[in-house]
């Protein structure tokens, strides 16, 4: 159950982009990045593989993925059974931190 994303930024790499979230419905076995990409009509490389395919409502077979490619978002947004793009806003603590 322990999951630690390999997202630690190293010097010289571009800062993380938020991307956007897309939803889709799928029945049966849990979708993979490849099957999610097919459902959305985009290349698998348009999806954030670290984020993966996340169940958000298993009873309804609803999943979400994070899409980093804006052009891909435009194509998938018009497909039947696909929801989004949904925002992926910045969030912050509701109190002081040592950095503020």
């Amino acid at each position, binding site marked *: 159950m322990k999951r630690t994303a390999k997202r630690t930024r190293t010097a010289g790499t571009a800062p993380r982009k938020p991307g956007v979230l897309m939803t889709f419905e799928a029945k049966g076995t849990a979708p993979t990045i490849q099957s999610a990409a097919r459902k959305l009509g985009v290349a698998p490389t348009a999806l954030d593989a670290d984020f993966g395919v996340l*169940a958000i*409502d298993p009873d309804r077979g609803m999943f979400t993925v994070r899409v980093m490619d804006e052009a891909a978002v435009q194509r998938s947004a018009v497909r039947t059974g696909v929801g989004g793009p949904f925002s992926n*806003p910045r969030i*912050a603590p*509701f*109190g002081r931190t040592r950095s503020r």
Partner: protein
Amino acid sequence: MADVRVLVVVDAEPTVRHSAMALAAGRSAGPGKAPRTLPEGVKVDRKFSAVPISRIGFSPQLAMASAAKSRQFVVRGTMSEEAFKKATAESRQAEAAGRQAKVFADPRISTFPSAPGCTAGPVGSTPDVAQLLGVGALAAKGLDGTGVAVAVMDTGINLAHLRSKGLKPVLDAKVTWSPAGGKPGKYPTDHGTMCAYDALIAAPKATLYDFPILLSTTPGGSSMDGFLSDALQAYGVLLALLQKPAAKRPFSSLVISNSWGMYHPSWDFPKGHPGRYADNPNHPFNVIVATLARSGADILFAAGNCGAECPDGRCEGVVKQSITGANAHPDVITVAGTTVKRQRVGYSSQGPGIKGMAHAKPDLAAYTHFLGSEAFGANTEDGGTSTACPVLAGAVAALRTKLPEAKLAPRDLSRELRADARRSGTASWNRNTGYGIVEPLATAKRLGLV
């Protein structure tokens, strides 16, 4: 009988014009002698510079209020109470007759006292909070969080700091998710450690889950921000646990404490966009919140720090409709903040929730701004609705020790807590503290837990 301080309108004449011009030149000098049109009984203050004014009762004209051109000036003086009563009566008659009043009160003024919580420095301390929550009575009946997991969605927990405060925290390092590496329980002491401490006030034997979702690499943000997708991933981990049969879960109940959110609408898609987060129950994060709640998790969110009296600077002055997104979700308990004196802190976001989400937000209030974890140094307060949220999460965890969700679903427990909350007025809900300040001991008694 004491004299009354008054402000008096007098006609222009050299003595007052010179006084006003001296003030404009940076020198303070009262009228050299009593103005001719000074009402009877007024003793003029020779140290108070005359102030040019545009004619009272007419549209103000800036040019006419200059020291050089004004036809009227205000001077300060004193008069006996008897003379003041007479002058007041004459002023009323003058106004009734369409003429200008000349004598006005010069009341004492002072700074407005800051709203509670608007200044640094703690109000009360952990023992006060524990007493108000009834922690002793709850613990005496075994309501201490044993077997209950409290997931702290924040900046990470530092167990060593918690131990240094005399706590004996239990943390399950196997259940975690981080966007930026690190080890559960070994993050730098910061906001997340404060939240963990506050949750343990009422549930000292709860098992902590460390989800440092706010350790971000967000461009433009601080090092203590994150993306909503980080929270989404963490929730995915918890949902996978809740999908298991109850006997195979590593907890009897799960409480999720969220002391975070969006500070300003500009962080989101524009208003009206169908993919917006703030007011959209169909946003993936709001969907997974509903799923988790339906699966048995008690989910608490801080109301936010955009209260009207002293909002956080990141609110950028937006203090209405500031409870948004999952913080205004109908399936979560939205927590406002009060001091241990039961006064709402001025930064606690006020309801109602944003249109499109639940209206009656916040739901409840809990304590904040007290001397607790000292995560930010000695004598610093645990503040923000960030503190109120885990304080209440700990109280929920305490009740859950003997009240699994199979007996009382999260939505029903929320209702029971609201029913027993201490209200500040006759209305059942108000925009400041929701249904009132939480009284977990009263709820425990009513439900037969103590």
